[in-house]
């Protein structure tokens, strides 16, 4: 008897959302999402503290105009103390989720507290759409095995396991529900771009892409590149048509994995152009989740091996330069408004992570038979081995 069609669809649905997926990818997704949360936190927390504070400033208008969700829940503006408590909870849970300690609880706490913080912030000004995808992603993270890899949780788990018994198992590579937050973020992003494109056509009509519209927006929100670009109506028109095409067709990204090579860079470029021409700010809370969700992070080491280590020189150079330039640009945008100590303190862990990802020959590490020290060493190294460049061998009971 053949399986009914509805059941096949149902199983494909479950597989798509909740099926097994890479835990390494989920771990990196979690970290990138936390960097985006950090960026939003840096804007929201001081603003809320200032708005909720006692200082009266005659020339700043700060009405409390709650978003619908707060209205429905009957929540008014927080007291200064509660605003501070919320900020503390967001910060602590964000740091814990970033390093992966008590990861699931931290992600759950962060989802609730960050959503509340963003809701309060948007109730004090104008609601924006820059944290929508981030918020959905955070909620989904709380329901996933987000701390199973690239986390202190995973390190501690391996250490306890190593201390308890002689057999060191490799860390899990896939798990059910690992794709859930990534899928949720991907879909939220696709819905966002699709409606951003189609709403322009629905409201502004085909005349929206006449070049003058973008010219006007650039003039209204003048930024470093506005003036030279707004001088050329034809250029503006081409950019508008390109924008409509990319935004409106973004959901096609789900049709074929290779389409990501077009849509993801175009979407990031769109945000960077908006930053330089329309004074939107860097919108890191939107394109960091985009990068987090649409890059198959677990495949990066293999990609580097194929395209840098094993490729011919021209390809090797082009790939290396493109990746290095893109990474440097992302890092420069992220660190630009931050204190130098942050850059310094992140250099070691990021450098270590990058080193373990480098397309070098797999290195064999022999762990001596059964000693606790060698088991602990194996636990540590296997946790760090997200790029799969370490191969473990043991003299007896150790399995790699």
């Amino acid at each position, binding site marked *: 008897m053949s399986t009914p069609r509805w*059941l096949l669809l*149902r*199983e494909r*649905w*479950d597989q798509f*959302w909740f099926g097994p997926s890479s835990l390494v990818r989920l771990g990196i997704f979690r970290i990138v999402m936390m960097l985006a949360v950090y960026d939003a936190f840096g804007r929201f927390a001081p*603003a809320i503290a*200032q*708005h909720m504070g006692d200082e009266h*400033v*005659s*020339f*700043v*208008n*700060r009405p409390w*105009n709650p*978003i*619908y*969700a707060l209205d*429905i829940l009957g929540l008014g503006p927080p007291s200064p103390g509660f605003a501070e408590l919320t900020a503390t909870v967001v910060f602590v849970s964000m740091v814990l989720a970033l390093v992966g300690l008590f990861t699931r609880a931290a992600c759950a706490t962060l989802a609730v507290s960050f*959503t509340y913080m*963003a809701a309060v912030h*948007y109730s*004090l*000004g*104008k*609601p*924006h*759409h820059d944290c*929508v995808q981030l*918020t*959905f992603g955070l909620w989904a993270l709380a329901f996933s095995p987000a701390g199973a890899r690239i986390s202190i949780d995973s390190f501690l788990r391996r250490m306890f396991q190593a201390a308890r018994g002689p057999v060191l198992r490799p860390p899990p590579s896939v798990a059910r529900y690992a794709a*859930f937050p990534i899928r*949720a973020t991907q*879909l*939220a992003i696709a*819905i*966002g771009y*699709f*409606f*951003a494109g189609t*709403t*322009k056509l*629905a*409201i*502004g*009509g085909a005349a*929206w892409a*006449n070049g*003058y*519209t973008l*010219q*006007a*927006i650039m*003039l*209204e*929100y003048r930024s470093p590149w506005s003036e030279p670009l*707004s001088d*050329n*109506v034809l250029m503006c028109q081409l950019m508008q048509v390109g924008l409509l095409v990319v935004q409106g067709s973004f959901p096609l990204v789900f049709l074929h994995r290779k389409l990501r090579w077009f849509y993801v860079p175009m979407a990031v470029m769109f945000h960077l152009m908006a930053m330089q021409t329309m004074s939107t700010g860097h919108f890191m809370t939107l394109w960091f989740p985009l990068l987090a969700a649409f890059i198959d992070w677990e495949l990066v080491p293999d990609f580097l091996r194929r395209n840098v280590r094993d490729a011919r020189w021209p390809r090797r150079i082009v790939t290396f330069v493109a990746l290095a330039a893109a990474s440097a640009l992302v890092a420069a945008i992220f660190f630009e408004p931050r204190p130098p100590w942050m850059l310094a303190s992140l250099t070691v862990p990021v450098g270590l992570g990058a080193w373990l990802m480098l397309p070098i020959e797999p290195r064999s590490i022999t762990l001596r038979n059964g000693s606790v020290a060698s088991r602990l060493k194996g636990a540590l190294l296997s946790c760090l081995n997200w790029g799969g460049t370490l191969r473990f061998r043991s003299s007896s009971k150790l399995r790699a």
Partner: protein
Amino acid sequence: MDLLFLTAAIASTLFPSGDRSAVEPGGARIELREGRAVRVVDSTTVELPCTSANGTGEIRALASDPAGLTYFAAENGLFVVGPFIDHLDPVLRREGAPSGEPRSVYVDRERRVWLATDESVGVVEPSFGWGRTLETGDLVAASGDALAPPFHFEPKGEGLLVVGQNGEASYQPDQAPRPTVDRLEINGAPVLADAIVDAGYGESQRLSAEGTAAGGATFRYRVDGHHVWRDLENADSLDRLNPGEHLVEVVACDRDLNLSAPFPVRFRVAMPIYFGKGFVLGVGALVSLIVLGLSLALQRPGTPLLRRVLAGVPTTAVVLIFGVQILAGLIPHAKGWPFVGYSMYSKSFRPEVPVHRPVLIARTPGGVEREIPPQLLGYAIDGRWQVLGPIVTGGDSVERDALQRVRKRVTGPGVDVLQVQSRRFRLTKGGPVPIAPLVLSHYRWKDQ
């Protein structure tokens, strides 16, 4: 009569009234030469073109605005130029403003633009173009007869010496008491000041007012402290009040554009039924149950209940959350965050339409202007109107506070003028053409 008219017309052409030159902030001089406007900087003279396809026609007079703009009375209308702006741009005269072909123009220290035309004399609000036209009885010649058009005038003391076809008359503004709003009716029912009016979503609100003002009161209103006072007779925006509480203020306006104290009324607009708490929660619960039921049912036969629930609940959550997100995309509204639509930047712009960019400007006594991003004042804001709005509507004390803050945090004590400007551009194929800004507020530092 014809002879008199001819004489007056010749006189106004041969001896045009009003200034012939003006000095802009920064030291450039605007002059009228043979009916055209030129700007003289050092020894360089540049003719100022016009954005209007018909041109200005013959320019008859110009007048300096204390805020730095220069207005022109010209054959084809009223025009304006700003410092560092190379094109004259027409000023659209709206409700109440004097009609006809301008002959004289004068800007007083309150920044009111007085205008004499071949038909009437009156005053125009400098940024939005609405105004008042003087009645026949306001301009009476020594003979006791009402002045007859065409008109021109000369500033005289705090007022104007208006010359008509049959003589001249002095007009002294601001002689009457401040106007008052005496009575306000909403949908035919009188309301008291500070009254709270409950209204249904989408209900039409018809406001009518009575008041006392020199020359008869006209009325304007604004919603939620907006800086634009709109005409009460065309109060269509009161039909589109969003759910929630809104402050509507009505003012009476006299013939000199003096405004009364606002008459405030609060509207409490109910949510539409489909956004009511009960409706949303009820429908949400019902849809959740249906999706959950389907999700539990559509599973492989024989699956234990616990596994069905474990698989069904997340599916229900995903369907509901993204269903609502899609709904929000179809009916965009930011208030539904995080279920929002994406209607930003969706308005189309057409060529020749002015585009506005509101900015905060600090100016030195030498006329050097600097744009001050409101964020530099040290307060976390989400949009520039959070700072610009209170400065425009708050009066001298607020403007002074803001300028003090600008001097302390950004510029130092070297600036003496703070303005909120709406910088404007006309969109053209050859690129944007800057035109005179709207100066929405102008404050000059006064030592106390």
